[in-house]
């Protein structure tokens, strides 16, 4: 609280915001409180300010309320649940004795191993009961002790036993093996390993595809101690002899698992270890004794910090002169129900090796399955558009599947329609499938996410034959400019934007830190680039549409269908104009002097022309608003070119 009446009460000091809020909150102590009240009575300025502070409080409360979900606080038997939890809690020993020692964890893992063995001996109920008890113990652990690499590894091993080895479903995992030369950083893919572990028998089917595409499969009994030659099986000749010998001694198989990792480090000849937490990953480092006969200097394991799931194993090897790294990356881990097909596969694998085809289906299309005979996709140039095709296009347009996603409508040789494509997220997959299944004549839909694509999908060439360099923008990651990645000069307009936001901050009368301003700059740049990218998506969609429903193709369409096509086209064009208007307004605010310096030529109806223009504006926007090589002094020229382009597009 400032002293309100200075030397002369003739020049009273105004109340600052903190005083006003404290007064409203009843937090001013009596002498200051009275002085503040007195001042308010005489000062219009402060009284007005007081009202606006009150308004801000109100709108803050409103936003806070809107932030909460609709039915907040959720109703339900929470009190009963809490009382139950409280009763359980009261009966538990105090939290100090909860802390499990490493010995307890070891014991627990032994128990789990016993449960695992029991399960294999067809006493699943008992195993399940044990696993349950162990799980309860696991999750009761308060997780608040500082963890050593040993403890983390032991816990992870416990989780793995429960989740993977005692799983009640068939577990399918896939691992990629790479070799990295540490002097040149050159990465060489060595192959992929797919493991399918049965949940009823100790059988594991292993399929390996070398970098040359050679495929091998083998089903082994995990309990069988006699695995002679098994560990060398995956990649003969890939690992150095000394390394191969070490793997064989340790019975290590190239897989990303905790059990495997433990055997890998068991013979390293030292006890040193480190655990490092990096965001949501835990990194464990296990150096090997100097001059270890295997040539390994260190192995590292990366775990998900939340679930303790192993993600990657790195193995650093040196022969004295050179250093290289083997990297095993777990690409997928999935649990699938034990289907009749899988059951049959495992029951026959016990006696003989299954056919290659059978193996492919068990390993979920690993390696890539050959395309099956059936109707073939036609290009737009060798087929006529149908009304059904238009209705599919409309449905896709309604869920924005024409914007930057590689989703194509294929007329098929048997007259049917196939919608095939690649989307980024499973939820997009669902949206598209849902939209299309609602049609009167739903087409066949094969929309994949990159994850499925690795497994068994085969993408046809686009029917519009537009693939090639122009499509490159579809694969670029969305622009994300992080404030930490911004330092003066890296982004051509950085200084300009920083100055603008500093001025604004000053005008607001608040103390913004440079980080706040950087955050604003990053946010603005992201928005501009994203808008610009969207314009490009719409222009691309127009171009695609004109090939899909070109004059040559539409002869068999009904008037209604033609009208629908036209509606989609207009929709995209409207979006392009709207976005360029929005961009113009936003940019004009920051860089006002180039506004209005544009030419006024109008864009014709040619979609190619439109696409080229929008493409150019996108290039310019990216150059100006993301970190690029461009010199700040050419930025001004590019900025006016960009404004001119936006005008033209608009």
């Amino acid at each position, binding site marked *: 609280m400032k002293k309100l009446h200075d030397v002369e009460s003739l020049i009273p000091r105004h109340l*600052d*915001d*903190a005083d006003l*809020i*404290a007064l409203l*909150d009843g*937090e001013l102590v009596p002498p200051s409180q009275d002085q503040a009240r007195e001042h308010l009575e005489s000062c219009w300025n402060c009284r007005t300010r007081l009202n*606006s*502070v009150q308004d*801000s409080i109100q*709108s*803050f*409360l409103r*936003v*806070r309320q809107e*932030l*909460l*979900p609709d039915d*907040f*606080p*959720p109703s339900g038997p*929470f*009190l009963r*649940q*809490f*009382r139950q*939890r*409280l*009763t359980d*809690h*009261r009966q538990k020993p105090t*939290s100090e004795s909860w802390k499990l020692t490493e010995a307890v964890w070891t014991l627990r893992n032994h128990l789990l191993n016993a449960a695992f063995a029991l399960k294999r001996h067809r006493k699943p109920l008992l195993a399940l009961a044990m696993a349950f008890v162990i799980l309860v113990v696991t999750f009761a652990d308060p997780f608040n002790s500082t963890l050593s690499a040993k403890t983390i590894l032991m816990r992870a091993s416990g989780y793995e036993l429960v989740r993977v080895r005692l799983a009640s479903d068939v577990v399918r995992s896939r691992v990629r093996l790479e070799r990295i030369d540490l002097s040149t950083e050159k990465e060489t893919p060595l192959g992929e390993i797919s493991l399918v572990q049965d949940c009823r028998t100790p059988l594991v089917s292993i399929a390996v595809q070398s970098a040359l595409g050679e495929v091998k499969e083998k089903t082994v009994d995990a309990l069988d101690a006699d695995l002679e030659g098994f560990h060398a099986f995956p990649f003969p000749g890939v690992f150095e002899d000394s390394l191969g010998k070490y793997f064989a001694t340790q019975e290590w198989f190239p897989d990303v698992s905790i059990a495997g990792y433990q055997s890998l480090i068991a013979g390293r000849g030292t006890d040193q270890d480190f655990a490092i937490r990096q*965001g*949501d990953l835990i990194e464990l480092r296990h150096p090997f004794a100097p001059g270890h006969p295997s040539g390994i200097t260190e192995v590292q394991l990366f775990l998900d*910090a*939340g679930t303790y799931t192993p993600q990657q194993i790195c193995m650093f090897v040196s022969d004295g002169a050179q250093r290289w790294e083997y990297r095993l990356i777990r690409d997928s881990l999935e649990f699938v129900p034990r289907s009749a097909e899988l059951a049959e596969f495992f029951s026959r694998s016990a006696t003989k090796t299954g056919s290659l085809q059978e193996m492919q289906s068990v390993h979920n299309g690993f390696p890539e399955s050959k395309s099956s005979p059936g109707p073939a996709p036609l290009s737009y140039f060798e087929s006529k558009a149908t009304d059904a095709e238009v209705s599919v296009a409309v449905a896709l347009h309604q*869920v924005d599947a024409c*914007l*930057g996603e590689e989703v194509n409508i294929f007329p098929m040789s048997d007259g049917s329609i196939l919608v095939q494509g690649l989307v980024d*997220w499973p*939820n*997009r997959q*669902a*949206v598209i499938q849902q939209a299309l299944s609602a049609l009167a004549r739903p087409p066949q839909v094969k929309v994949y996410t990159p994850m499925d694509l690795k497994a068994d999908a085969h993408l046809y060439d686009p029917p519009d034959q537009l693939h090639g360099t122009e499509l490159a923008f579809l694969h670029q990651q*969305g622009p*994300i*400019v992080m404030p930490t990645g911004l330092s003066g000069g890296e982004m051509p307009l950085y200084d300009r934007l920083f100055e603008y936001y500093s001025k604004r901050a000053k005008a*607001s*009368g*608040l*103390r913004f830190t440079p980080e*706040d301003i950087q955050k604003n700059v*990053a*946010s603005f740049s*992201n*928005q501009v680039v*994203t*808008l610009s990218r*969207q314009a490009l*998506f719409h222009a691309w969609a127009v171009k695609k549409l004109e090939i899909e429903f070109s004059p040559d193709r539409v002869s068999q369409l009904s008037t209604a269908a033609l009208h629908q096509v036209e509606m989609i086209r207009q929709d995209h064009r409207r979006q392009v104009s709207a976005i360029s208007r929005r961009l113009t307004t936003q940019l004009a605010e920051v860089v006002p002097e180039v506004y209005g310096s544009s030419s006024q030529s109008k864009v014709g109806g040619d979609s190619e022309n439109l696409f080229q223009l929008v493409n150019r504006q996108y290039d310019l926007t990216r150059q100006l608003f993301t970190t690029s090589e461009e010199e700040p002094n050419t930025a001004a020229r590019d900025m006016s070119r960009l404004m001119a382009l936006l005008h033209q597009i608009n």
Partner: protein
Amino acid sequence: MGTMTEDSLSNIAQAFRLEEVRVPGGKQTLEDIVGELYEKVRPSLLAYVYQMVISTSDAEDLVQIAFLKLFDHLKGKTEVSNLRSWLYRVAHNLAIDQIRRVDRRSSLIQEWFPDGVTLVIAESAEEQLVRRQQIESALEVLNDRERSCLMLRAEGLSYKEVSEVLGISAKSVSVYLARGLKKFEVNNEKTT
């Protein structure tokens, strides 16, 4: 579990600004008292924790854990002053631990993607989620301290209580409130 004395009951009631902490039926165990406190204080504490973790189930769980800790705290203790700020502080720290645990990467990406991107990647069925993200962007100008101060004050905590929850001085609370409110106001004008 022994019953609580009249004195400590009225202290608890005072700390939580409740008329009384009393279980019908006369005999009151600590479990009953904490159960009753949970029922009465849950909505407000839940709202505070929710705005930190943005997940109702996580918030519910953390609030329950905070009350379990309150139970331990009250057990065998006669000193029951500053209970409310104690409870909020425990919940606040639990929420911070939780935030560190969950995947920060995805939320960072969302934070830095401006609203336009949702048109491309989010389906229209998730409009509500988008709306919430937009509202949240109304608060993104606030730093953690300002946001916590405003949220705690909005739950009715006094400056002293807020200062105890966050481990800062009451004077700083006043400054954070003013600064936060001002930033919020400027940002709000900009967006509307």
